[in-house]
Structures are given as C-alpha cells and as structure tokens.
C-alpha cells in the first residue's frame, strides 16, 4: 500500500528508528544542547565530548521523536564521532543543502561509503517537505552544542 513511501522509510531508517544507537549521555560530555520542533513537540538533547583539539570524541542523544528524527539522531552520532567540529559543521551544511533540495550532491568529504549511503537515505525527506525538519533537528541541535548554545528551535 505504501510503496511510494519506501524512499522515505528505507530499511536503514526503520532500523535506526526502532533501535537507535548512542541513546545515552556520555559520562564525560562537556557540551550539550536541546533542540525542539515546536510544531510536532519532538525534542532531542545532544551530548558531546569535545577534546582540546576540537575533536568530537564521544556523542550521544536523548529524546523522543518520529522514526525519521530518531533515525537521523542515531545515524548522526555514528557519523560524526571522531571528527573535528569544523568537519562536522561542513558536513551538516552539505547535508542540509541535500535534504532541502538545494543540491543533489551527497556529502562525502571525510566520511566512508556507508555514511554516504546513510546520508543519502536520510535525504529521502526532500520529497516530503513537511518532514525535512525531522531529518535535520538532531543536526541543528548538534551544531548548537558545538557553538556553545544551550538550545535551538527549528521554527
């Protein structure tokens, strides 16, 4: 019945939506931010452990949301771990452009083919404008945490 929705709900999304990875606060986290989508009530807290070389050593999240926003948060934590704050910011900018349909180019700088595939899957939201914020909420929150902000709202 929902064949045309397979672009949005790909297996990897359903998997991370059901079994999110890194759903915890790392004990040595030194930055955190809360991100809210006031339209739907989704809220995520992103926790980061950033070392003095600006490398994200650990990352986790807490919160509740739809399959898309949960999968996005989960996959994001796996993708950004071990990368520098600057690398992550560039990756987010490139992913945001893909998810909003500004570009068709899937970001690949500094990430492996598996992560490229994951970002590609997440970018399925571009066909569903009302769901774009679900895929980007965790990323906006991560960016806020990296920038030293306490909270961010997608509205």
């Amino acid at each position, binding site marked *: *019945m*929902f064949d*045309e*929705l397979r672009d*949005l*709900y790909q297996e990897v999304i*359903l998997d991370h*939506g*059901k079994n999110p990875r890194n759903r915890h606060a790392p004990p040595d986290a030194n930055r955190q931010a809360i991100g809210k989508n006031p*339209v*739907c*009530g*989704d*809220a995520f807290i992103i926790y980061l452990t950033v070392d003095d070389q600006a490398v994200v050593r650990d990352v986790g999240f807490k919160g*509740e*949301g*739809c*399959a*898309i926003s*949960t999968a996005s948060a989960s996959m994001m934590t796996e993708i950004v771990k071990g990368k520098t704050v600057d690398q992550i910011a560039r990756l987010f900018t490139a992913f945001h452009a893909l998810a909003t349909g500004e570009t068709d180019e899937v970001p690949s700088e500094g990430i492996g083919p598996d992560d490229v595939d994951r970002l590609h899957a997440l970018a399925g939201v571009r066909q*569903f404008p*009302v*769901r774009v914020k*679900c895929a980007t909420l965790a990323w906006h929150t991560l960016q806020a945490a990296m920038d030293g902000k306490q909270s961010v709202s997608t509205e």
Partner: protein
Amino acid sequence: MSQSSMAPLHASGINDYDVAAIRADFPILSRQVYGRPLVYLDNAASAQKPRQVIDTVSRFYEHDYSNVHRGLHYLSGVATDAYEAAREKVRAFVNAGSEREVIFTRNATEAINLVASSYGRAFLKEGDEVVVSAMEHHANIVPWQMLREAVGIVLKVAPIDDAGNFLFEEFEALLGPRTKLVSITHASNALGSITPAGRIVEAAHARDIPVLLDGSQAVVHRPVDVAALGCDFYVFTGHKLYGPSGIGVLYGREAILDRMPPYQGGGEMIRSVSFDRTEFAELPNKFEAGTPPIAQAIGLGAAIDYVTGLGLDRIAAHEAELLAYATERVSEIPGLTVIGRAEEKASILSFVMDVAHPHDVGTLIDRAGVAARAGHHCAQPLMERFGVAATTRASFGLYNTKAEIDILAEALRGVREMFG
C-alpha cells in the same frame, strides 16, 4: 447538556439521513489525492464547505457586496441586511435572547481574547482566580496567562480522569471566594470529551461566578441552547461549522456585555468621536471595531441554514454511529491505544500506536488519501497529562462514512506492517 435533554428537531430519525446526497453538496469530497479518493477526517481542525456556503459567498461578492452600517447607497443597505440576517441566524442557532448578544469575531480564539481582555481587565484583580480544565485548547489557556501577566490573576485547572472524563466534584472543589470566572471547553478538541456544561454553569452560578464555554467542537456535533445552559459567554468558530474561515462568534448575556468596556477601538464601534471624548456604540457594534468579516458572516449564516436543514440531532446521531464504528475498528489493531474514552464524546478519535510515532502514522495514512491530524492539537498540557508528545486524531463530520473509516483502519494496518 446531556444526550437525554436534547429534544429531537426531526422526528424522522436517522434512517433518511442520505449521506451520499449530503456528500454531493461538498465539491471537494469528489477530488482525489495521490490518485486515491480523499478521505477527509480532519474536521476538528476545519470542516469542508458545502456548495450552499460557497455559492452564498460568491453570490454576495458578485451581486450584493458593500461595506455595512455606513453609506446611504443601495448596496450598503443590501449588505447590511444580509450581515444582520446572518447575526439573526446565529442568534436562533444557539437560542440567544437577542441579536445584541451575538458578537462577530474573527474566530473562537478572538472571542476568548475579547472576554479575557475586556471583562478580565475591567473586573478581575490580582489574586482573583480563573478556572479552566485540563483539556483546554491553547486558545482557552494563553489569553488567561496573558491576563495573569497583566493583572496577576491565578489560573486553576480542573482535572480529568484517565479516560478523559471531566471530574465534576474536583472542579466544584476549586470554586472558592476568589474564583471570579470559569472558562471551560464544552467539548475537547483533542479527546472529544463532552463536559457537563449545564452542571458547570449551575455550580458556578450558585456562587455568583460567571461562566464562559468554548463551544468550538460542540456546536458542530449537537444542538446547543445557551438559554438552557445559562452560560454567560459561549464562543465558537465558523470554519469548523462548515462555514468560512475568518468568522467566529461570541455570545454574551446582554447584562454582562453592557458592563464591559470595548475590546478594540475604531470605526463601527462608536456613536460619536471628538478629540476630547468618544461615545461608544450600542451592542453588538460596541465590540465590532472596524470593517467586519462581512462575506464570512453571511457564509456562516448559510452554513447554519445547512446544518439546521439537516438537523443537528440527526447529524449527532450519524456522527455517534461513526464514532462507535471507528472506535471499534481501530481498537482491533494490535498496539493501538485510543486516548480519550470519556462516557460522552463528540466524534473525535485520538490514538497512539506502539510501533509508530503520530507523524509517521500521519505521513503513511496521508498516502492512502486519509487526511487526519498528527500532533499536539494545540493542547500540549493535555498531551503531557497522558504522557504523550502527540497523537493521531481522526475527527468525523456530517459527510463521513463507514467506508471511509474502513480505509482508515486498512491504512493503520499498513502502518503496523511497515513499522511492526
């Protein structure tokens, strides 16, 4: 107002309720979305419009449009007559005593803000208490919080039980010497629960406390009689009653409206203006500053003609049957929990599924052609009460059918298949 106190407007019963003929009155219901027939189950957010309303509004713009209450020309008189005739239709619809008691607003939200602002600032003082319920729409929460900021009133919240029933005894216990206003929904937009409005008014009036009822979800599902209810204010919106958006109604008892200062200043609401002093117009114009939503009011009049022509009691019976059927059908789906099982309900069905977030449910059933609301329904404190961030809400109107509910149930099974 209980079911039993409703006198049937039509003796013929539901058997001649011709839903196919009724659907033919609503042009939008014949359209498709994603190549499937539209199944419109978002009536609690806004209802679709029958041809009779659409044509009345078009005809007014094509033949009779002018500003109202000013100008001595022919069309001004025609437009004023049509606008005031709509007010009379509203008066009769809720059985108000006089047209002076019917104020046109933009929507129910503005009607509540009018009361909070005018009555609230004139008559409520620091420490005075306003009682609302746990299942109010934000429109009946935020205006009182703004009044709290402005004058220091205290907001009290009457609780509900886990099924969504209004707890009358607990409500009554909140009424005290400092209670100066009760403002409660007549039917919850998120749960469908009907509140015991008559008893609420009785209990409050026994303590000389005025009562506002938010009837936005009630007037569309059942006959409402403000004289029988005895309430001081009753508000509702036009667009949920199959009328245009941009028009709402504040009913207020004349004695209380007379004592209230104007809400907004401008044209229309004055008798005479000089730079030294202004004399305000009589009711209802005192509360209708500026050019009103003229065509929208006339469209609302046509919508009222439409629903009263069908008979509110017959609509209520049809919708009760739909609600019972839908509740049964969706309850068969494993992992689905209905939120709100009050004893008396308007035809609103809120639910959550264990396998999928309401937004995912919404996206999936949308592809099956089903328009339903997923979210917090502008009732976040209520969502918190039930420990959910959001629900999916199917709300049924006078034109919905059991076949449409079957499509909803089938789509929900598809959700389970994909996420289960």
